[in-house]
């Protein structure tokens, strides 16, 4: 029996140094870190698969649309702005592509840096983080924008989009980019318009295939007259018209007392004409009708329930479900706004509220009061809505907590 502790410690001879074990562990960790890696492929625009599947395009037709749209608009790294679009290609190039500075202090790839992780490279609201946001980020492709100074069906102006970028959208994940320079914001707005025009043109082309006559043999005519003169022009015209489609806002009645105005607004709020109470609820806490969807979600819900689930072609149904899984997010109902919180997504200026009440919110169930409420009276609703966060003993009684607590 050997009593030497060292011998007892190493009954099978010298132990391998644990440094070697550590090195093996390091190598394993590096391998783990590098596992599943491959060079990052260049960014690409995703085809609007929901629309393509909905219109039952064949793979050849999908390829044709992708090729044509790529020829018209370029790629995420090399955008093309045809003169007919009215877009400034220099601005697009500042916003497009990977993030890099080839000149000291001038950063390209602004969209990829600030927007693409939520809105997606294609502007399809399918960026990696999109599922975590509530509401979901905006899908630019249908060309529908909520917060603007134009009539409901019209496009937003350049200034409207600029304002959204600068102020952000309170109560959502859309941040304010006020720390970016004017040039950078301008480039981003241009790029958002570019993605929207591109997306809407793509939808137009996909639907055009559905409308083709038999002579076309299922192929789009690849002529400039058709692609640019008809399909692109149809979309671009609406954007060009935006600057002349501003809502005509009357002066706020100067001769009326504010208390009186609020009382009038309240009357309209609960009345049949404006009928705000239907969705915003009798308490204005947003507890009225809450089983509706916005247009983006409704599109998915209706397609799923009315067409996909009722179709006899099982093969197509399976394909449609694969597209729904990969190219859409779980539909969510839209919550009518709680007007007692003092959070106004489209801006807190009285003018912003006027626009929302007058034109409604495009893409949302919120209807416009235009035509049902006289323009001057809309100001009374604005005043009433603005008073709601501060109303302490209204309909709800004295035991209602002070909702203005949210204003910090």
């Amino acid at each position, binding site marked *: 029996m050997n009593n030497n502790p060292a011998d007892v410690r190493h009954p099978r001879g010298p132990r391998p140094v644990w440094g070697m074990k550590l090195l093996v562990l390091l190598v394993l960790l590096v391998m783990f870190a590098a596992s599943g*890696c491959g060079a990052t492929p260049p960014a690409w625009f995703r085809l609007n698969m929901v629309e393509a599947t909905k219109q039952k395009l064949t793979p050849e037709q999908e390829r044709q649309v992708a090729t044509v749209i790529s020829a018209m608009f370029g790629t995420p790294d090399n955008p093309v702005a045809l003169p007919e679009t009215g877009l400034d290609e220099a601005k697009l190039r500042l916003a497009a592509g990977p993030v890099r500075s080839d000149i000291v202090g001038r950063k390209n790839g602004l969209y990829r840096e600030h927007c693409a992780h939520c809105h997606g490279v294609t502007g399809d609201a399918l960026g990696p983080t999109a599922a975590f946001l509530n509401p979901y980020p905006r899908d630019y492709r249908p060309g529908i924008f909520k917060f603007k100074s134009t009539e409901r069906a019209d496009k937003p102006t350049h200034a409207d989009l600029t304002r959204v970028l600068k102020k952000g959208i309170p109560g959502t994940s859309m941040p304010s980019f006020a720390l970016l320079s004017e040039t950078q914001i301008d480039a981003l707005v241009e790029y958002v318009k570019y993605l929207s025009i591109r997306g809407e043109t793509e939808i137009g082309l996909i639907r055009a295939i559905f409308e083709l006559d038999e002579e076309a043999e299922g192929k789009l005519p690849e002529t400039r007259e058709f692609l640019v003169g008809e399909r692109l022009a149809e979309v671009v015209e609406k954007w060009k018209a935006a600057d002349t489609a501003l809502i005509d806002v009357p002066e706020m009645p100067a001769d009326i007392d504010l208390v009186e105005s609020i009382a009038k607004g309240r009357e309209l709020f609960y009345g049949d004409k404006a009928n705000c109470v239907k969705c915003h609820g009798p308490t204005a806490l947003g507890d009225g009708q809450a089983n509706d969807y916005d247009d983006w979600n409704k599109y998915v819900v209706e397609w799923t329930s009315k067409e996909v689930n009722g179709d006899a072609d099982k093969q197509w149904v399976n394909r449609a479900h694969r597209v729904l899984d990969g190219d859409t997010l779980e539909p969510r109902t839209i919550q009518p706004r709680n007007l007692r919180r003092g959070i106004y997504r489209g801006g807190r200026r009285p003018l912003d509220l006027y626009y929302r009440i007058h034109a409604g919110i495009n893409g949302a169930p919120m209807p416009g009061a235009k035509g049902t409420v006289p323009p001057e009276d809309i100001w009374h609703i604005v005043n009433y809505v603005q008073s709601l966060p501060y109303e302490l003993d209204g309909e709800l009684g004295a035991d209602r907590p002070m909702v203005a607590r949210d204003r910090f």
Partner: protein
Amino acid sequence: MASAPIGSPSTVRSTVNGPAIVAWILVATTALLLSFGALVTTYDAAMAVPDWPATFGHNMFLYPLGEWFWGPWDLFLEHGHRLLGATVGMLSLLLAAILFRRPASPALRWLVIAAMVLVVVQGALGGLRVILDDKTVAKVHACTGPLFFAVATAIAVLAGRRGRGDSSGPATDRSDAVGRDSFVAVGPLTLSLPSWAVGASLPTALAVAAYLQLVAGAQLRHADATLAASTFRWMVAIHLAGAAVVTVLAALTVIAWQPHESRTARRWSLAILAMVGGQLLLGGGAWLFTWGLPAWLQEAWAPAEAILARSPRGAAVITGHVILGMMILGAAVVLALEWGGAERLEQIARTGIRGGGRRLHGPQARLVPGAVTVRPRSERGAR
């Protein structure tokens, strides 16, 4: 019976321990380097300088200081990251040169070799990330950084211990703790811990888990914009699950280390738990600044103003989350190596010497030869 070389003047010479000082300077510089790296990612400034190893055509070291320091923020971060990287590379070389000229344990030598390999690989990865403008390389680069930091910390701990004499670690005579269950009283509860939980196992597991969290976090921060939302959701879930694992391990470490003789070790384990708590808060803050409030919180509280993108406060929280994660990793490495006992027991076994219950320095260190017998692993396991 082994002789007692430890007390000889050749190994215990003075209280100034050059390699340890250089090693700790390396750790501090690496922490600064990684902080710059984290800021580079936060501000997406990796391509603020499009060429490498040159900076806008200049030799990296000759780029005008004023243009760098007073120039655009992105350039300041990226070029600063490069300068710090070069400094860390040179410090690693210096440390290796010093340590290989002196007697050192095989473990220390292997660690220095690992550090040299890692620092070269990391520099090359940084260069490739720029030259190829590739996010995959960026991800690997972000994973290798904390690994180097952990290795540098381990070197500093071992070099520091060596300077105090091979067997005279801090007041951590763990020989009687090994092979015996520990009992921890927490209020009315008494927890019985197996003997393995008392040693370096838990801090080592914590260090590995903290590192894997940094790896998972790096995947989130460098996620490509073309990544599918469903994939990203899984990645976030993994990171959140990892946070739970790290928290549990940190809490278990605190419980397991309460019987430890060294008050510093006990406090160190508590400090790690506190850091993990802070890390959870920073993680929540990073979520808030990146995506806003989750839906279930929106009704309870929402600010009337939108979040400000790229705000200094948001960048500090998001970057702080990365830096604190790295600190947790380093702290766990220190706990495992300084007080974990494995190395120390090995030395005791080799030399048959154990130190006293206090820190020993210099030739006046009193060593007691042949005072301990360490049971073989198999025997310990049987108990």
